[in-house]
């Protein structure tokens, strides 16, 4: 059986990105966060959905990293002189990113389930988690794709990625709640950070506290994602294929 073109690219993306070292970083690191932060601060129920949301960022870095590596190591040009269009390649990366995000969230849930000796999410809650992680993965995937398509130097790419991730991760409600006790600047950063909304939505699904207002947050997130995906597509389609 011959798989459709995008499926073949997704298969390849997984084969290349699921070596033991990559998996430890992708899943092991957030799992360690879960254990240390959860036990350290004693609030696993707060941290667990936060780290499920955090998987959308990890998935985004995987997506951006794939484009970056494929440009750097010649595989992008090799694939594009093969039986794939630029759009196939982009869809392959986007789909891989979403699958990574969802799989990572499930792993985080499994770790939390084990640590909490059983924690259950309602079907509606799961629906909310899946939709939010999917949209969130696309959001951060698109952001990292723009970075990968524009930046030419390895050092610049890594530096920008670390800087962006630092702000996105720590100025969000993944690890800490947004409370009036926070300094104002942090409160502002928390509220302009899309990861806060992803974490809040996942947490609401996880806790079973979804409210009508969450629909508006999801729509806002979706709108931002659509804009970023369009920008990423345009940037990527116009970018140089070869790194050198």
């Amino acid at each position, binding site marked *: 059986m011959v798989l459709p073109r995008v499926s*073949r690219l997704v298969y*390849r993306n997984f084969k*290349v990105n699921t070596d033991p070292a990559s998996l430890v970083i992708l899943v092991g690191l957030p799992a360690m966060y879960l254990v240390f932060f959860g036990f350290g601060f004693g609030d696993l129920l707060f941290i667990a959905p936060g780290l499920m949301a955090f998987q959308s960022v990890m998935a985004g870095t995987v997506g951006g990293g794939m484009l970056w590596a494929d440009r750097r*190591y010649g595989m992008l040009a090799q*694939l*594009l*002189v093969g*039986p*794939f269009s630029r759009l196939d390649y982009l869809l392959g990366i986007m789909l891989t990113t979403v699958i990574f995000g969802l799989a990572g969230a499930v792993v985080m849930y499994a770790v939390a389930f084990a640590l909490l000796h059983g924690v259950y999410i309602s079907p509606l809650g799961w629906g909310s988690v899946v939709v939010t992680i999917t949209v969130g993965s696309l959001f951060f995937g698109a952001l990292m794709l723009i970075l990968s398509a524009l930046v030419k130097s390895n050092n610049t790419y890594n530096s920008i990625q670390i800087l962006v991730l630092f702000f996105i991760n720590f100025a969000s409600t993944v690890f800490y709640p947004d409370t009036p006790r926070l300094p104002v600047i942090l409160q502002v950063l928390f509220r302009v950070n899309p990861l806060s909304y992803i974490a809040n939505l996942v947490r609401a699904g996880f806790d079973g506290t979804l409210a009508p207002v969450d629909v508006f947050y999801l729509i806002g997130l979706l709108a931002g994602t659509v804009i970023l995906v369009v920008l990423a597509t345009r940037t990527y389609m116009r970018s140089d294929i070869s790194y*050198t």
Partner: protein
Amino acid sequence: MHQDTSDAINAVGLVHSYDGKKNAVDGMTFNVRRGEVFGVLGRNGAGKSTLIKVLTTLIRPTAGKLTILGMDPSHKSEEIRARIGVVQQDESFDFTSVEGNFDIYGVLWGIPKAVRIERRERLLKEFDLLEIRKKRSFDLSGGQKRRAQVAREFMHDMDILFLDEPTVGLDVIMRRNLLDLIKEQVKGGLTVVFTTHNLEEADYLCDRIAVVESGKVIALDTVENLKRLYGGKRTVEFAVEGSSGIELVRAVEQSLNGESTLKVLDDGTALVLTEDPKKALRVVVEASQKLGVQLEWLNVRKNTLEDVFLSSIGEQRSGN
């Protein structure tokens, strides 16, 4: 493979410019016949790699007419790419083992599993990669990488194979070894477009050669015809001791007054391509005596493909 009597590639006035000012490919006209090994010979920066990018639909021509396998790449690029194989000049590997790369590549091309395994095993054996099959591709030596990259391309069926300087960076033995492997693989009549700046390789592998300079095709024929075209000519070559070679070359050039093509190689050897070797010899000897320059050696020989190449470029430049 598709049966079609038309040319595999037909290019008329092909142009590509990266910046809209200078043409990297500047009005190339040529055809590649089905089943031939077609060489694109030129120095670094002559436009070979840009030409390959245009022919493999990676970039669009700025002007000109191009058909590949009877199709217009501006409308049928996906159909064309499904029927060509490309070995790029730069390395291109996934972060996995050699055999992993072959497997993934087979999957990407939609090769059924049984065929994939059979081809992978055959190619690993034929390209002498069995011992390093488990090695990660980025840990391979330069020669092993090139062998693996070329071999991997044969995982899928194709009508045209593009080889963009596949032997670059390899030593003489590895180069010949890889050329032999390519020769063996294309015995069945596969059309091959092969770019190189190495004249021996072009001579060894190609049926016809296009000599490319400054984005233009400046000579195009079979290797034998190219040699015959310049066959009336002989090459007078000489070298002098010390730093007075430049003066002698200038004096010889002046005396020959454009009747012959004169080239100085990197090692200081001067070549005079001429139809009148006696006169050229006399000029060189007289000039050296006049300048008091000691000739290290002086020789007359039949021309080689290298001389054809140098001569073509010389004519192109004088034409400009």
